[in-house]
């Protein structure tokens, strides 16, 4: 090595990793360290008597609590019920929102006809529909599905609308030039693939929104994770509440991860 050559960056005394580089702990080290500190503080707060364990159950008791819930059959039943509400509500809300959003973007008449209806209904939070959900469907899975549908419908409507409106006019002209005259003729070969990145971004936002709606919808008594949380909190079994909260986080993480894998596969042309 030439005498003029600088030593490798990591060998220099007092060297700091450049911004954006994870440094010596690497890609997994920092997140693991952060999680460990978070769990340690959480464990310490009830252990030091800063809060009673009933108000903040320590993380160390959660694995046993979870296992007990599994053995008792509560956990699996709640997960199955919530997942069925979630998937059904997500499917209906996403399909409906995307379909209407695409239709409004392509049809100026439909867009104009629904513009005031959308303005009136859009600001109403999904949870505000709970009284009507109970009146119309009763305290049963259909009302939970209804709340979830409302929760994801608007997100998908607006993102699909925006995504289709953002399709380059040049692509419409190209389609016309090759005989794809009319909006319906262009829909599957040009419009939907071109709008897919935007539409899928809306679907992903809906995945998270739907979990919020699931729990809110189940808190009023429909079987599922939300209902189990309410039962447990009324008995001050907060460790069960925390287990259910972490279950929701894990389920959302899994669903999101699977969706991202699917999205990346569908949009691999983007590179």
């Amino acid at each position, binding site marked *: 090595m030439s005498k003029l050559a600088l030593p490798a960056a990591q060998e220099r005394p007092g060297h700091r990793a450049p911004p954006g580089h994870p440094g010596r702990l690497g890609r997994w080290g920092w997140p693991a360290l952060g999680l460990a500190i978070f769990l340690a503080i959480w464990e310490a707060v009830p252990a030091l008597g800063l809060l009673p364990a009933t108000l903040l159950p320590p993380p160390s008791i959660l694995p046993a609590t979870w296992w007990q819930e599994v053995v008792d059959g509560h956990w699996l039943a709640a997960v199955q019920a919530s997942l069925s509400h979630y998937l059904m509500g997500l499917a209906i809300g996403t399909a409906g929102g995307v379909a209407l959003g695409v239709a409004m973007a392509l049809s100026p008449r439909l867009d104009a006809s629904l513009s005031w209806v959308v303005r009136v209904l859009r600001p109403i939070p999904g949870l505000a529909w709970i009284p009507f959900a109970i009146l119309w469907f009763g305290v049963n899975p259909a009302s939970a599905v209804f709340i979830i549908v409302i929760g994801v419908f608007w997100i998908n409507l607006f993102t699909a609308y925006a995504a289709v409106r953002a399709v380059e006019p040049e692509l419409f002209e190209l389609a016309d030039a090759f005989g794809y005259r009319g909006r319906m*003729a262009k829909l599957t070969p040009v419009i939907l693939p071109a709008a897919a990145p935007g539409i899928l971004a809306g679907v992903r936002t809906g995945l998270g929104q739907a979990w919020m709606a699931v729990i809110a919808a189940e808190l009023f008594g429909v079987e599922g994770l939300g209902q189990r949380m309410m039962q447990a909190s009324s008995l001050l079994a907060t460790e069960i509440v925390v287990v259910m909260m972490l279950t929701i986080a894990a389920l959302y993480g899994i669903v999101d991860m699977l969706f991202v894998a699917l999205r990346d596969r569908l949009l691999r042309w983007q590179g």
Partner: protein
Amino acid sequence: MSVAVRIERLALRFPGASGPVLAGLDLAVAPGELVAILGASGVGKSTLLRAVAGLIAPSAGRVSVAAAPAADRLPVAMVFQDARLLAWRDAAANVRFGLERLEVPAAQARQRVDDSLALVGLTDLAARLPRQLSGGQRQRVAIARALAVRPEVLLMDEPFGALDAITREAMQGELTRIRQQTGKTILFVTHDIEEALVLADRVVLLAGQPAGIALERRVELPHAHRREHPNLLALAAEFRAVLGTRETA
């Protein structure tokens, strides 16, 4: 004389514009002829091409393309300046785009895609996505896509305008070769006088407001050495003079 494209008393108007961009335009293009439409930016060259493609309706006059009715081909096909490949389709699928609309049987479509890609020298890149192709390669795919629908007339709207000088010259050579192999009638829009004279059998200059044909010259020079031919320089000077006079006016 048989005619591939006939334009009669054509007037075109942009939506919302006070006056027409083109008026009283007459032009007849013979089968197999390459006519270059030359003119300054905004004069209405691309608009004229869109009218021939049927993408916009004339406000007066008529455009007709002589094409025997056939379910498996389009009378005209267009090549745009910006290639306009569908980013989610590979090169072969982009070439297949028009054939899908024509519902050409799969085996026949595959053969046409292969033939068109071979004609533009991209057989080996059939599976590449547009983002994996260079500007020149993307434009070749766009030409192959247009040729695959077996048009009577190929409409080319400044197809090499976005390419660098070296690639543009190479593509001009490619187009001359493709034309010799296919015998296609071509309407070629450009604002580059040299490009028009190197490629065309006839050059038509559009100028004025509304635009009409300000100058029309047949280029009867051998394709092989046109670029260096002294007569080409003289013709270019003639077009430049008319263009300069009209622009100043």
